[in-house]
């Protein structure tokens, strides 16, 4: 089976211990995480984990079954890139001198649609949200001008299909 990129979305109770449980599922199977991010979700008190892995269809199905089995997990899904809308976010810290001395750098920023977050006498910070190739291209372009720091977030994504988490939670409420 072919390895491709899968985005795993997990809806869970806000529970610190769960992070450990979920990462143990990957650790046990020697599956590297491409990225991992957690945040609030559209539902109050429900957390969302977005995990990106490169693996095959059979393994991702089994992993998601194991994740969903965890008591504190409400629901887990996996999707291919085509089934999701996803973005990553990158920050670039560059010497301020290069902004004024190198005219070219301004063109790079403009054409990449990056935005300037802050400027100080010593450095400036720009931000770019987009696909991996886009943030990566900008990193390459800026490197010759003295990139002081670079950081990229994990992938965040929403699915094209409906998740139906509120329905699950309402159903639980009504049967109680």
């Amino acid at each position, binding site marked *: 089976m072919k390895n491709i990129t899968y985005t795993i979305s997990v809806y*869970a109770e806000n529970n610190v211990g769960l992070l450990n449980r979920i990462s143990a599922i990957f650790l046990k199977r020697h599956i590297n995480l491409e990225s991992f991010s957690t945040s609030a979700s559209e539902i109050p008190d429900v957390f969302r984990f977005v995990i990106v892995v490169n693996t095959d269809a059979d393994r991702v199905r089994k992993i998601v079954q194991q994740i969903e089995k965890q008591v504190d997990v409400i629901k887990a899904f996996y999707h291919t890139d085509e089934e999701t809308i996803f973005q990553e976010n990158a920050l670039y810290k560059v010497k301020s001198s290069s902004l004024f001395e190198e005219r070219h750098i301004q063109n790079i920023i403009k054409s990449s649609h990056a935005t300037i977050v802050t400027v100080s006498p010593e450095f400036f910070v720009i931000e770019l949200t987009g696909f991996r190739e886009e943030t990566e291209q900008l990193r390459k372009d800026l490197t010759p001008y003295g990139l002081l720091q670079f950081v990229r977030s994990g992938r965040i994504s929403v699915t094209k299909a409906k998740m139906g988490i509120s329905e699950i939670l309402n159903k639980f409420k009504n049967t109680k």
Partner: protein
Amino acid sequence: MKIKTKKKSMTNHDNSIRISGAEAVIRCLLEEGADLVYGYPGGAIMPIYDELYKYQDKLHHVLTRHEQGAAHSAQGFARTSGKVGVAMATSGPGATNLVTGIADAQIDSTPMVCITGQVASHLLGSDAFQETDIIGISTPVTKWNYQITKAIEIPEIMAKAFYIARTGRPGPVLIDITKDAQFDSLDFSYKKCTGIRSYTPTAKLCNKSIEEALELINQAKKPFVVWGQGVILGNAESELKTFLEKSGIPAAWTILGLSALPTNHPMNRGMVGMHGNYAPNILTNECDLLIAIGMRFDDRVTGDLNTYAKQAKIIHLELDPAEVNKNVVVDVALISDCKISLQELNKKIKTKVYPNWIKCFDDLDKIEYEKVIKYDLHPKKEGLTMGESIEMINKYSKNDAIIVTDVGQHQMVACRYAKFSQTKSNVTSGGLGTMGFALPAAIGAKMGAPRREVVAVIGDGGYQMTIQELGTIFQQQIAVKIVVLNNDFLGMVRQWQQLFFDKRYASTEMVNPDFVTIAKGFRIKAKRVEKRDELETAISEMINSKEPYFLEICVEKEDNVFPMIPSGASVSDIRLE
């Protein structure tokens, strides 16, 4: 300083009472019907032990000799009583000593709640005396775990712990309670947990799959059932029996499914797996329909997956959705409690017989008898065999003992030859294969089913891993019968060395102590048997004893367990010699 306005045990307006966290823990246990706990005290759990002292007329605490013993005892109790077992330990080494038992309970789906003391919450993360991250350590081997740092959390978390341990696919839950949470007081009232929104214990059975399953069963010419512990955990023994009797389908069990159907039931065709019976293993690869009930296609059952039942359609009755299509891809999955699935199937199943197919089992059984069983049960040689020892236990316990086994050759022989009339009578460490399991598990098994005869069958190796629990047995006067089948070897490993490592017996020979003297040192009645003509009297005396009894049977040193599927081989490559 805060001044406490309410006095201890004063009832509040909302019917709650003001008590300490430690007392709340005890009351929660009692609310859950847990009046028996196994454990070992220490600094971080002393407030709870202090309450145990006050509640000793309501809650019986068994002091084991090692926390591993407490965990295995709780498991043994759960396995024979069907209730949740409870084990307690202090922080640090107390908690880590529980881990083997927790891992065993996790892989064998045993309902258990473990309570560990923890350093005070202000010390967490400071490497305080006896602080270990037991939550981190136990996470991969628990169904759920939680650290309580405030007394007020105790009732709700304890209720959740029992609910999670017992429902769905059962498993171990660990609750770690900081010392300050045990000392602090709370307004206590208890409400049992009846549901958790993120957790679906049992899925609703899909009617369409029932129809599909029935269709496959109707078409089958050579159907075969393999059942596992799910039948016992789901209390589905009578449904299984009805299903087999109506459908006429021959059936075999995994090691943890043993005793769900009486040994002498005509549809019971023995054990599958590495040291299982010849016919069910061979015929796994000849049946045209395999119906797996409450089992998970463990590698010790399937051998090489690439050649496992490839010719057959497969129906899987399974509670845990994560087990479906995990090791073996199935044609129809009935995802629910197997009791419900079997009830649905039983409503519509046609009455049938498969005489030619059954004859295939009979023919292969004859081969196994001639090549293996005959020599195990009626040996011509001088040395005693494990098989004849088990057969003698059958005779004197009238095929109705609870047999608790450790891990190794004696375990396989006991499971092959022990006869059962009732369910929940086989207690063994299946998934983890934990040596040292049997002696403490037997304590729990007897306390979980006090009216039953409990015989622990243990190897000389594994016995020495938890031998100190003889102290618990004597102190509590638990009338278990302990049989050590002594071959002076780590027999199972030696067998592999003989077969696969050119007889290089690296560190498997044991120079053993005088087991009888040791047992007597623990003030337990003890006897050794070396010759065949002593065996019968010794076993009869043991079974008739009202007290705990230790019997060492010196067996042939270098016997092997057959049949055997070499690891990684196909079930149909099972060897008889």
